[in-house]
């Protein structure tokens, strides 16, 4: 059943049960949010998505308000913008303004909205936090000083990963998000799936190995399929200057959404491992000697042909690869069957 509402003077129809925020997103109407994520439940914690509804005295959060027939919504009225600006002023009051060196620069929602609403941090000169940074693990940097307490990482940990490692601790100004007993990540039961990092709207949670490696506008993102287990997660390889500098979640990934595991999110640094083979090698007198492609391929082709001629095609076999692409495997089995002339082809299909 469709409900018709009016948003900023435009009539739109959306399914019954839709929130105002979802209705706006369906119709490309921009509403700022810090705590909302379509994969997680909505708490209305940040209040940044407040809107004005005709006939209502207060400003309800769009993420927690369901549409009704005939609803008239304003998303950019002066009252709404003033309320959002105050919220942002309060968030920025105790937020470090080291944006120039912050890894999140260019991807920071707080900075983006501060820019939009003209928030400079001058109105409320608040006390700043000086909490220790959690860098005791190889994967995630946690800077609690930058945390805006939106709670998305807490929900990602419980609702996506099913672990509930993170929660709020302490009260009032001292409130933080952390593992139990305020332990560092590496002393908690964390699996390092990095779902928390994937939803953090500010620089509180970042991928450790990407720090200093590139700014968002310099990075090309290439969606691809993870090379580890058979789940088939998709993610974005982040590429700068011809080098993969890390992995970020792609929310449109058909199998996994934002979820990944420690290997997929943090293990692709093996692409640029110094141990990579970079040239063909031919063993001469027991020692590998670098060779040109032509020399190596000619040698393999000649040896295979010789063995085939002298001993028959069945004296040659191939182990294909469950790690490589369908296309690689197709040409490999065709090579063995149609060129060498044997069905001696297998791979670790059962392991």
């Amino acid at each position, binding site marked *: 059943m469709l409900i018709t509402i009016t948003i900023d003077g435009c009539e739109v129809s959306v399914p019954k049960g839709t929130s105002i925020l979802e209705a706006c997103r369906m119709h490309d109407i921009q509403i700022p949010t810090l705590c909302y994520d379509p994969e997680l439940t909505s708490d209305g914690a940040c209040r940044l998505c407040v809107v004005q509804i005709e006939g209502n005295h207060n400003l309800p959060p769009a993420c927690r308000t369901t549409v009704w027939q005939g609803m008239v919504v304003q998303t950019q009225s002066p009252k709404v913008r003033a309320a959002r600006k105050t919220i942002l002023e309060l968030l920025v009051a105790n937020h470090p303004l080291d944006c120039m060196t912050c890894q999140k620069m260019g991807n920071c929602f707080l900075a983006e909205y501060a820019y939009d609403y003209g928030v400079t941090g001058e109105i409320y000169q608040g006390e700043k936090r000086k909490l220790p940074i959690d860098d005791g693990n*190889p994967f995630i940097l946690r800077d609690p000083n930058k945390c805006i307490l939106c709670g998305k990482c807490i929900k990602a940990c419980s609702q996506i990963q099913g672990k509930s490692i993170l929660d709020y601790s302490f009260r009032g100004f001292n409130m933080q998000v952390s593992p139990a007993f305020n332990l560092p990540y590496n002393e908690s039961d964390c699996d390092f*799936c990095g779902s928390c990092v994937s939803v953090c709207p500010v620089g509180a949670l970042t991928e450790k190995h990407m720090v200093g490696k590139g700014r968002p506008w310099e990075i090309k993102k290439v969606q691809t399929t993870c090379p580890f*287990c*058979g789940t088939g997660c998709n993610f974005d390889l982040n590429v700068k200057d011809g080098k993969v500098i890390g992995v970020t979640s792609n929310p449109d990934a058909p199998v996994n959404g934002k979820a990944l595991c420690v290997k997929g999110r*943090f293990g692709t640094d093996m692409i640029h*491992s110094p141990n990579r083979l970079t040239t063909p090698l031919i063993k001469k007198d027991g020692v590998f000697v670098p060779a040109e492609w032509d020399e190596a391929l000619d040698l393999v082709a000649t040896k295979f042909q010789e063995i085939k001629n002298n001993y028959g*095609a069945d004296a040659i076999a191939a182990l*294909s690869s469950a790690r490589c692409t369908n296309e690689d495997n197709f040409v490999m089995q065709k090579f063995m069957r149609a060129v060498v002339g044997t069905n001696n082809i297998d791979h670790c299909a059962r392991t």
Partner: protein
Amino acid sequence: MTNSINEIPNTKLMFVIGSNTTEAHPVIGTKMKQALANGAKLIVVDPRETQLAEYSDLYLRLRPGTDIALINGMMNIILANGWENRAFIEERTEGFDEKFLETIAKYPPEVASQITGVPVDQLVEAARLYATTDPAQIFYTLGITEHTYGTDNVMSLANLALLTGNLGKESSGVNPLRGQNNVQGACDMGALPNVYPGYQPIVSPAAQAKFEAAWGVSLSPKPGFMIPDMFEAAHSKNLLALYVFGEDPVLTDADANHVRKGLEALDFLVVQDIFMSETAKLADVVLPGASFAEKDGTFTNTERRVQRVNQAIKPIGNSKPDWEIICELATRMGYPFTYQSPADIMLEVASLAPQYAGVTHGRLENHGLQWPVLSCDHPGTKFLHEGTCTRGKGLFMPIENQEPNESPDAEYPFLLTTGRKLAHYNVMTRNSAALETYSPEELAEINPADAKRLGFQDGERVHVKSRRGELDTKIVITERVPEGVVFMTLHYLETPTNVLTNGAYDKVTKTYEYKVCGVQISKIS
């Protein structure tokens, strides 16, 4: 998988047997935890108390290798209580005959309990929950298949699904979680000794004629060697040359010393890989392939979803995409492979493999397609066996419990079982500095009672020996493993676990028995 990964959060019951899902398939593990949050029940069957077992409603710690007795026992209980799905058996199956029922009758709960070590009340509760919850799904992995009777283990699970009608529906089926990123695809592409692409049998004259016509050459009707046969044939000089592509059998195949000797006996070994693997070190020629980030193509995941692999960077150094290397070899041997791109290769796959008939790189975009994709306008297949099974009727098979090829004895009193851990994927992830820092070494798991008896301290290095090989490893003392059982992973070349494992294999698939062998453990003097 008969079903899709995103059907998991909506299932009502998960029967997980021989799968350490949260470590070996972590994101599928998260989907299972989401199902639990939605109110689903979870039964975990495993000798080792996995992380998933901690989340379970019912954890059945069976003796390693007694899965058939457990499943037959559950079916005995289901039949005794009338929990079977008579309508499904009548309409959708065959083989539900006296011979099948006689076999099941041999496994009353007390007998099944005695063989498996699982208390009768747990067997009854598992049977009741699985048979009376709808939809219910089975998940299994290598804990089922890596036995000398792995095929029989799988058929037992199929029996259980058929008996209860938990098949051919949304969120209900039999779901093997495939281990490698493209093991499904490599099988689909016919990188197997007995089938052409699309599982068309080598021994079928019609299939042979089809591929001969497509490729313009005559093809051998003789099925080829499976992996264990290759090493045997190399030993006996019936196999002289081997082309190993993206695998490291020296570390990953069972009875590694035997594998190494087989490789050393070859006249000519070519290895194509992205790293200097232990196998590559033995090669005559090493060809540098490109990693997944450096080439285009597709992987097919465990739910049959064909997905794009997109080139992000140029091949490192002088390496080349693997398909290009193979094409160049074919051309040099007098049969030009003239594909212009992986998309071009997929056009030929689609023309030959019926499951891929409607797959093109263009159609896959960023969401992929689940096979069978029967034509260019076919949407793909979310779950299998709806209305009818692929073979027609589901076939009940009478399966008897069997013993592993090598069980612990007086000389080798510990049972070694092997698997993976969360931080690593086989042997390649050791090249990730981040993962290597996090998880740098093997930690063999041993039960506190055994450790106490042998005088071992947590973190001590000990000596492990089997009939085939020996090594030293650090240990962790944990109740995750039962008394008498040791668990090790295959990830570390410094601790090459497969020198210990047994090279005996399943009679049909020739899968090694990685999950059970006898070892002795002693202090390092």
